[in-house]
């Protein structure tokens, strides 16, 4: 594996391998000495053309934990705001010795373009491209599910038979896309719940079930409910009548949380709109994995950087 662009490219064995390595990295994060020498002398360039807090910090923490040097470039405050092209920006980074390019861009497909363009020899990690994919988020989500659902027997396992509901703005969500492909590969069954206006048009091709309200999806007694952020920045026109209406039909409220089985978990990739897609007390409850997801995110990204490093066969 030279690049990580899409969870679609991962075989089941590769995906489970990444989750197992993530587990080992979680252990390292729990030790007194949290640093590994693995990427000593290598440079990870975080290139963020789109705003991000946790993904950027998470990749930085992961790279530093592997002893890599990190340089971070954001669109604001760089020559990108002077109109420098993507190609020129990336070739500049390459000339400065970037071995890994972690790339976030508001346009779908940019990471794949960079990886196949021949502009750079660096490993490319997609950190979110438009509404297309966010593979490291899917890996940390799958890891969080596997640890919570299988506990000590998780190693080497997939998510076979797990019943997972993803609710919210599926159409604009790269998190949903990456999750669906990965969860399918890992053997989970996925139900997407959203207003019709927020379901993608090609949904029949996705290999998932759909539900038109969250209550309908909860009737299937899920193991996991993943709530997605309502992305106000990607919404130009009215996809649903009002925020209170959204919350009424698709919000993860306290009453809906009470319907879930005891072992079920509620996830959110952050940043949360409390009171809209997830109620504050659900986000803070024992079911919620929100902070666990952030913690696992660093470990998952360490696993990805390490796995891309080996010689290509």
């Amino acid at each position, binding site marked *: 594996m030279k690049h990580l662009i899409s969870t679609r490219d991962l075989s089941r064995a590769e995906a489970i391998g990444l989750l*197992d*390595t993530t*587990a*080992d*990295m979680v252990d390292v994060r729990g*030790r007194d000495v949290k640093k*590994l*020498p693995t990427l000593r002398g290598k440079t990870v360039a975080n290139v963020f053309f789109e705003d991000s807090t946790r993904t950027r910090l998470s990749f930085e923490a992961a790279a530093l934990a592997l002893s890599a040097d990190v340089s971070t470039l954001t669109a604001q405050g760089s020559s990108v705001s002077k109109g420098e092209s993507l190609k020129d920006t990336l070739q500049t980074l390459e000339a400065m010795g970037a071995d890994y390019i972690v790339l976030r861009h508001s346009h779908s497909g940019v990471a794949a373009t960079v990886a196949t363009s021949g502009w750079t020899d660096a490993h490319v990690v997609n950190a979110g491209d438009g509404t297309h994919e966010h593979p490291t988020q899917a890996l940390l989500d799958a890891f969080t599910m596997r640890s919570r659902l299988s506990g000590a027997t998780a190693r080497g396992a997939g998510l076979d038979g797990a019943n997972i509901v993803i609710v919210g703005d599926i159409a604009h969500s790269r998190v949903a896309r990456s999750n669906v492909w990965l969860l399918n590969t890992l053997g989970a069954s996925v139900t997407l719940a959203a207003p019709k206006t927020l379901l993608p048009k090609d949904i029949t091709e996705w290999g998932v079930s759909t539900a038109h309200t969250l209550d309908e999806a909860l009737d299937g007694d899920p193991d996991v409910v993943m709530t997605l952020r309502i992305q106000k920045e990607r919404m130009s026109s009215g996809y649903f009548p009002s925020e209170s209406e959204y919350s009424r039909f698709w919000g993860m409220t306290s009453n809906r949380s009470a319907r879930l089985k005891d072992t079920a978990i509620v996830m959110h990739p952050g940043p949360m709109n409390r009171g809209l897609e997830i109620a504050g007390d659900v986000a803070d409850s024992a079911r919620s994995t929100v902070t666990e997801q952030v913690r696992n995110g660093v470990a998952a990204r360490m696993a990805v950087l390490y796995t891309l490093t*080996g010689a290509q*066969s």
Partner: protein
Amino acid sequence: MARIVLTKPDIDRALTRIGHEIVESQRGRTGLVFLGIPTRGVFLARRLAEIVARIEPQEIAVGTLDVTMFRDDIQQKSTRATAPTDIPASGIDGTTVILVDDVLYSGRTVRAALDAITALGRPDVVRFAVLVDRGHRELPIRADFVGKNLPSAVDERVNVSLTEVDGTDEVSIA
């Protein structure tokens, strides 16, 4: 053609002898921790711990030390899967760590293991036990306890099979 160099009784005898040597080298020190390097070192560590406990009953901890992320050939070789590291809950500070592996060759795995140990704590003593030493060291490293010295050519392969993973106890060279 693979040539068998150690059979099950040979392996048992070698491990028993190493067990005696470990007890002798303790010189009254307690707090033994056997750390096996995956995959086969882990099972050899468990066997040695049992043997030592039989020879001289004492409290012995057994664990696993994954050295993958400490290797110096990560960029050159295709990606190796990591394995869990499992050490006693009380840590390894002040203990006598016996590192255990199946084959000693270039010495690079042991070098990585020493770094991995340093990241986990500060044992009083670290010793290294190996079932087969096949020579061709690339670093100034030697084993304290050796089951069998096996002169080999660089292009030969030494294969260690253990009942726990391979269903049979045997060392062969091809």
